[in-house]
């Protein structure tokens, strides 16, 4: 090697990761300039070793384990409350279902609208009723799950995501047929489904479900709904992404 070693080559050599270790060593043995640079680099690396880390007591591992299991236990309690709210939602979904089915029966008996509009409205109501049934199944299933198994969490998230897509499709159809009640109902349902579908955090393929913040937000919104009788301000613009 006729040229001097670069800083990169010297650093990688120090860490034993250079592409051609033998050539680098041979060059260092023959070249006093590179040897000098490498020696300075070694001193710097030694300085790096001295950047201190606080020493933890010998029982730190034991305390970390105890803290972990205490935290898991504490988290299990809000989950139980979360399940309770899911049951509330499952009940609400049943009421919504009854409402839509009621509309279906009502239309059949007292309609005066043109036949084409009736058919399109009836098909929509029928489809929305099935969508609500499916949502209800998911909510009940979710309420019965402990969520310690990541596979189950992912399963419910995917289910919720699919339901959000269905929900949006039905909302579009409801807009076309100007079914305002159905639109409102689907809007409210979407908020809940998004909470469940968005319970993910992806970074280096690490996933979390659902975060405490998301659960708290959902609980807060349900509390607001209980007080005001509605989940959100329908006039407020919403930006949502799947």
């Amino acid at each position: 090697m006729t040229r001097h070693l670069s800083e990169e080559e010297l650093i990688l050599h120090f860490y034993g990761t250079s592409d051609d270790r033998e050539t680098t060593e041979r060059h260092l043995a023959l070249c006093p300039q590179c040897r000098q640079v490498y020696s300075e680099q070694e001193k710097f690396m030694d300085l790096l070793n001295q950047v201190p880390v606080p020493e933890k007591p010998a029982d730190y591992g034991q305390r970390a384990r105890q803290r972990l299991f205490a935290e898991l236990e504490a988290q299990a309690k809000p989950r139980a409350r979360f399940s309770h709210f899911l049951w509330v939602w499952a009940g609400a979904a049943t009421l919504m279902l009854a409402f839509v089915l009621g509309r279906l029966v009502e239309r059949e008996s007292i309609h005066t609208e043109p036949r084409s509009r009736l058919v399109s409205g009836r098909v929509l109501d029928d489809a929305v009723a099935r969508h609500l049934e499916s949502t209800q199944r998911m909510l009940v299933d979710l309420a019965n799950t402990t969520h310690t198994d990541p596979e189950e969490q992912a399963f419910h998230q995917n289910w919720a995501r699919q339901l959000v897509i269905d929900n949006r499709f039905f909302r579009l159809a409801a807009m076309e047929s100007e079914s305002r009640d159905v639109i409102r109902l689907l809007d409210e349902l979407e908020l809940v489904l998004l909470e469940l579908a968005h319970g993910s955090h992806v970074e280096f393929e690490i996933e979390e479900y659902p975060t405490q913040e998301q659960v708290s937000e959902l609980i807060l919104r349900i509390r607001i709904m209980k007080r005001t009788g509605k989940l959100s301000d329908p006039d407020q613009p919403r930006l949502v992404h799947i």
Partner: protein
Amino acid sequence: MGTEALLTRSNHLTEEDFAGIAESHAHELFRLAFRMVGSEHDAEEVVQETLLRAFRKRKQFDGRSKVSTWLYRIASNCAIDFLRTRKRDRLADRDQENTPDQVPSLGRSQELLVHQKELVTRLGKLMQELTPKDRLALVLRHYQDCSIEEISRIMNIKPNAAKQAIFRAVHKLRKGMTQGTP
């Protein structure tokens, strides 16, 4: 008991297995977290979050990599998440608060010792100014003694990118130290 033995006994890590892993790896996770976030209190939070995430994902651990590699991967994500959400001014305050007063003696004169201590303190601060990815690569290689292959698995990057990140980190630190020298 080794990880292989744990996985032979059952197909995944049980709660009991995980308790043992948490206990035996807590110290090294703390060291990694501290090097990343630069504060004792925050590092403890990162360790806690790492163990929580790992516990929830314990059934996904298939024993193909070392337990430490798996845990480092999760800890790295937690630390990077933490750094993203933490405000910069809070970071600077904590750096000062948490730099231990005791620096290992070099066995030289008192003056040199003081100078050395200043250098080490400065270096610790410069480390916190590196990008999280460069810092992580350096911490894993220099302090945790991970191989390039392990680093690339932990960080989900190619081996060459891992080498580049290590080089960038050392280069920036050396440059920073040179610029700071009167």
